[in-house]
């Protein structure tokens, strides 16, 4: 997967195509067995749709006692020709309660409140991304101190902004320098069209993706820069009981 390209504007309302990338994963550890041989995780077939409780019950005339006796007498729950096989290439499909495959699905959006109570059920409508190579992330000019941000939000994701050529190096360096000198982070918001009007919106990086509050932090040294977009979808708040 190539690095993502996004459009971003600076405080002079100039925009440029730049790239974003996630932090590198820290070197962790590997698993071995007791003989120090490397092991890896594997997904294997345990049963199929013909071996679920519902399918087996149907096979035994809907009688739990018959099913129990069948389980004692034999192994109807084990597909001997399948069990232990690697899954290999596969697709995800939706199935009905009776195990039959759905060829045309209707998707609903169900909203529950903090107590778990369902409060809304409507047809699902795609929510478009607000960050990408077609929409420009505007400069909001709303700055905050780092202290304010870390006391209000949990930063759960971040991406580094990187240049693609000399021009975008200068462009990003200037943004980083501005934020570095002000010792602030700037709020980043996307733009979404609501009822035909363009309005500020949270950062959404792909269709139906999670929305984030974004805060851009800049640091510079003599010849280089670091611009990090910190992303949060969790406030440091008490849970209302």
């Amino acid at each position: 997967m190539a690095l993502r390209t996004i459009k971003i504007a600076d405080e002079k309302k100039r925009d440029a195509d730049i790239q974003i990338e996630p932090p590198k994963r820290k070197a962790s550890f590997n698993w071995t067995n007791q003989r120090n041989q490397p092991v890896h995780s594997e997904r294997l077939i345990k049963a199929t749709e013909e071996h679920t409780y519902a399918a087996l019950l149907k096979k035994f005339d809907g009688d739990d006692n018959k099913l129990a006796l069948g389980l004692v007498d034999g192994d109807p729950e084990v597909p001997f020709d399948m069990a232990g096989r690697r899954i290999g290439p596969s697709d995800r499909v939706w199935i009905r309660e009776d195990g039959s495959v759905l060829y045309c699905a209707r998707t609903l959006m169900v909203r529950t409140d903090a107590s778990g109570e369902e409060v809304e059920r409507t047809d699902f409508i795609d929510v478009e991304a607000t960050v990408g190579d077609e929409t420009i992330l505007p400069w909001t000019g709303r700055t905050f101190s780092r202290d304010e941000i870390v006391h209000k939000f949990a930063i759960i994701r971040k991406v580094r902004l990187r240049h693609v050529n000399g021009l975008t190096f200068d462009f990003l360096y200037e943004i980083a320098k501005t934020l570095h000198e002000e010792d602030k982070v700037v709020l980043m918001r996307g733009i979404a069209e609501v009822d035909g009007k363009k309005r500020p919106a949270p950062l959404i990086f792909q269709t139906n993706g999670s929305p984030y509050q974004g805060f851009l932090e800049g640091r510079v040294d003599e010849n280089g820069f670091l611009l990090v977009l910190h992303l949060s979808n969790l406030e440091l708040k008490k849970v209302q009981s």
Partner: protein
Amino acid sequence: MARSIVVNLGGKVSSFGLSKIDREKLYGKRTRVVVDENGNPCTMATLTRDGTALLPPGSVAMLYMNDDFEVCERGDLQAVTADGEIADEVESTLGAEVELRGPVPAARVLDHLAKSVYLLDPEELDATLQAALEAGQIFETRFNYRKGFDENTLFLLKNEEGFFGIVAELAEFDFLYRNQAPTLEEDDAEDPFADDDLDFSMF
């Protein structure tokens, strides 16, 4: 009885009860539900590409095995570091006194990514630490919820809502310089938002 976070700052001990905060508890949840023609909810299953197996939830086993297809039970697994050394297990820090360091700058918190957030209930709070937290200072210590091979950092801070513990892992970036074009290796980097899914609750 639930165990506490116990910290020592300059020889003074404080302890906090903890309860995890997640998005569902704070904001509720929005989920996509797929229904059939009668409005009955459906479940997601796996269909092998050769069409020979339809696997409803619960039909798949996840096992650890070596290259000879021999299964290794979870309890027999050994963690090995990048140097080939067997990694030491780290005990849980809950209920154990750990040294608190700081105050640390907010930039130190921003160099990390939060893995979980706890609302803390002070059970015993040293006056010096309380005053520092109320003044907006941030402290850090090591944290391990349960015995394991990873050790995380816990940032301790306070805002108008209460005391919070942010469990985080280091995720720093290097500075970029003019001649650093994206390399092939970097071009293969994972998509940071590939597993993103709908959840609009905070907004």
